[in-house]
């Protein structure tokens, strides 16, 4: 017994010693407040995204090795789903790094919260896709290397079998045509649901994927005149019409109220005929379907097809001790060859024509060029207000309620009430 306990005690003491030694060897790299002028830290949401992280690291390495580098950049990668939580915690502790990447629609919120400082870059951003430059109150706070675009994928053979024309950028499907196409595709009897709208998605997918449909009906997430209320816009007649239409897709058996966890894989496994997704799925689908793949614009529900603008972008934090170097690096990273390297690695739409020309798929006549056209023609920025993260959450809840069978007007009224209360309680999110 005595020996047994002595062992436990000895183990405890060893453990205590281990804590100390772990502490000694286990201090991570310096964060913003302790950053020296020769090294600055850059956070990205790409942990696990091997291709994009490698491309970003490549740009950083090239900058670090250049003789003009004003500081050494150190990359720290976080998993995307938890990235915002890490940033918010670091901000609370005053430990933000110098450079962060940010999901575009969140930029106004981070600028309002004083996480970000306005960019002062040596690069001219006027030729960039508008959705890759994030502005708030007249200042540019973030800039992206790329954007993504919503689209619909289908098999040419299925459309032909159903006698449905493929939608084109010149002639997208109207609401009636879409209804007709789904009816005919369902009649083929190949799938339980001919359409996969990714209804199992969560988080930012809900506003990113479905608010453009709302906007195509003529409604919006918020009244963009001053961004002070969603009343009459998110719960007006057009919005209710959207909600009824959306729920109707499920009621008519065209789509599942909860799709499979991986809609792209389901589409490739022929579990759906039309997939509502984004440009990120195109390469995988093309590799699997080859020439049979058709990339179509989203449906024109009355006000033209709409897609969400803005993907991940880069900004400089307000507490950065070496802003000059951070701005210098960002300017460097926006060179066409750097943007092309990142866009190529991720299959995303490069932010400028110059960068696109360096990627065969996005150059004129390239297989993915159509996404750049979608972005230029249809992109609508998600509301550029600090309230956006809250609006996105409430809209996401409303979408899920509508899909679950809630009264459309009631679900949207609830969202509007919460959004307006939030804006009011934050003093209108004035700067």
């Amino acid at each position, binding site marked *: *017994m*005595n020996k*047994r*306990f*002595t062992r*436990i*005690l000895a*183990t*405890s003491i*060893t*453990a*205590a010693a*281990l*804590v100390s030694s*772990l*502490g*000694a060897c*286990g*201090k*991570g*790299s310096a*964060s913003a407040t*302790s950053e020296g002028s020769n090294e600055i830290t850059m*956070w990205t949401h790409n*942990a*696990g*995204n*091997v291709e994009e992280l490698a491309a970003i690291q490549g740009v950083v390495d090239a900058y670090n090795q250049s003789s003009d580098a004003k500081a050494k950049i150190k990359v*720290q*990668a*976080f*998993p*995307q*789903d*938890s990235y915002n*939580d*890490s940033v918010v*915690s*670091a901000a*609370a*502790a*005053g*430990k933000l*790094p110098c450079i962060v990447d940010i999901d575009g629609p969140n930029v106004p919120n981070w600028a309002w919260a004083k996480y970000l400082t306005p960019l002062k870059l040596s690069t001219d951003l006027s030729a960039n896709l508008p959705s890759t430059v994030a502005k708030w109150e007249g200042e540019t706070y973030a800039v992206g290397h790329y954007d993504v675009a919503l689209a619909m994928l289908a098999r040419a053979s299925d459309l032909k079998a159903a006698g449905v024309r493929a939608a084109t950028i010149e002639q997208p499907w109207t609401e009636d045509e879409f209804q007709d196409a789904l009816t005919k595709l369902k009649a083929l009897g190949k799938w339980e649901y001919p359409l996969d709208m990714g209804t199992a998605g969560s988080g930012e997918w809900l506003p990113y994927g479905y608010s453009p449909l709302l906007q195509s009906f003529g409604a919006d997430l918020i009244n963009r005149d001053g961004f002070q209320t969603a009343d009459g816009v998110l719960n007006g007649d057009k919005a209710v019409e959207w909600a009824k239409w959306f729920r109707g897709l499920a009621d008519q058996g065209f789509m599942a109220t909860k799709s*499979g*966890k*991986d809609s*792209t*894989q*389901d589409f*490739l*496994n022929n*579990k759906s005929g039309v997939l509502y997704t*984004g440009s*990120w*799925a195109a390469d*995988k689908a093309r590799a699997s379907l080859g020439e049979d793949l058709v990339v179509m614009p989203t449906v024109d529900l009355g006000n033209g097809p709409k897609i969400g603008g803005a993907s991940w972008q880069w900004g400089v934090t307000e507490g950065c001790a070496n802003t000059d170097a951070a701005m210098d690096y960002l300017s460097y990273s926006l060179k066409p060859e750097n943007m092309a390297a990142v866009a190529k690695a991720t299959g995303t739409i490069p932010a400028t024509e110059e960068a696109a020309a360096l990627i065969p798929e996005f150059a004129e006549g390239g297989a993915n060029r159509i996404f750049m056209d979608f972005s230029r023609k249809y992109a609508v920025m998600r509301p550029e207000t600090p309230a956006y993260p809250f609006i996105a959450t409430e809209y996401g809840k409303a979408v899920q309620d509508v899909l679950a069978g809630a009264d459309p007007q009631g679900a949207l009224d609830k969202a509007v009430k919460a959004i307006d209360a939030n804006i009011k309680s934050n003093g209108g999110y004035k700067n």
Partner: protein
Amino acid sequence: MKNSPRLSTLNNAGTMLLRILFAAVAAFPIVFMLVSSLKPDTQIFGDMSSAAAFLPVGNISFDNYAAVFDRVPAARFLINSIGISAVTVVLGIFINSLCAFALSRMEVRGKRVVFTVILATLIVPFQTLALPLVWWVNQLPYFELSGFSLEISKGWLDTYQVQIIPFIANAFSIYLYHQYFESIPKELDEAARIDGAGWFKIYRQVVMPLAGPATATVAILTFLPAWNSYLWPLMVVQSEELRPVMIGIQYFFQLNVSWGEVMAYASLITVPVVVLFIAFQKSFINSIASSGVKG
């Protein structure tokens, strides 16, 4: 009235069948995870609508495991989690049992109030404390040996100890030990005292050796949250080399998720927990059962 042997055999067979059914239901997710970890994505989804989803058939390989190590520094994360969990468990056993011993055996004024306050902390969810705690740990002094000099800096963020020390003291562990110590006759203390033992000797030579089942339970109940820790390291650890395994699972949720890799990683990080549970299951069940009766 006695059952006939035939009826009794039928009863036994029925009970056994029910047990097998319950065991199968409990095992299905784990079997699915292990089997899927060996299949390519297309096959995982293809097999989903048949019993093949639970069988290692078709295109079987360890490719997903190889891919896991390409995407995530899995070995590093595993070592981190093993270290963090082990240290938390060992120190947790020592500190919490000492606290419970004092509250159970020593005559200290106000100990009931202290015990009540400790128990009251159980109702505060960690999520409500997380952000203030981040601020606090960032104010704590940090000692670092640099050559022969001791350097003091501020802030524990991005360290191992910030993942360990806040979780050593645990109200539920104190409660479990306290309840168990209450069941050990106080006469043993008195006998030891007559033999000249002090409090610490009674603790280590009389009480603790009798508290094996409680220790096993506390070990498992401390190990599990330490191993599953996600929110806290997410908030306080920035460097990849210090991250635990649960953060790693998020590495796989990209726009095009590779489910085979997710299953392979999930299998890798589940194995240590299963091994630990199997090793301690007898003591664990004994302790839960006894503290339930006495509690």
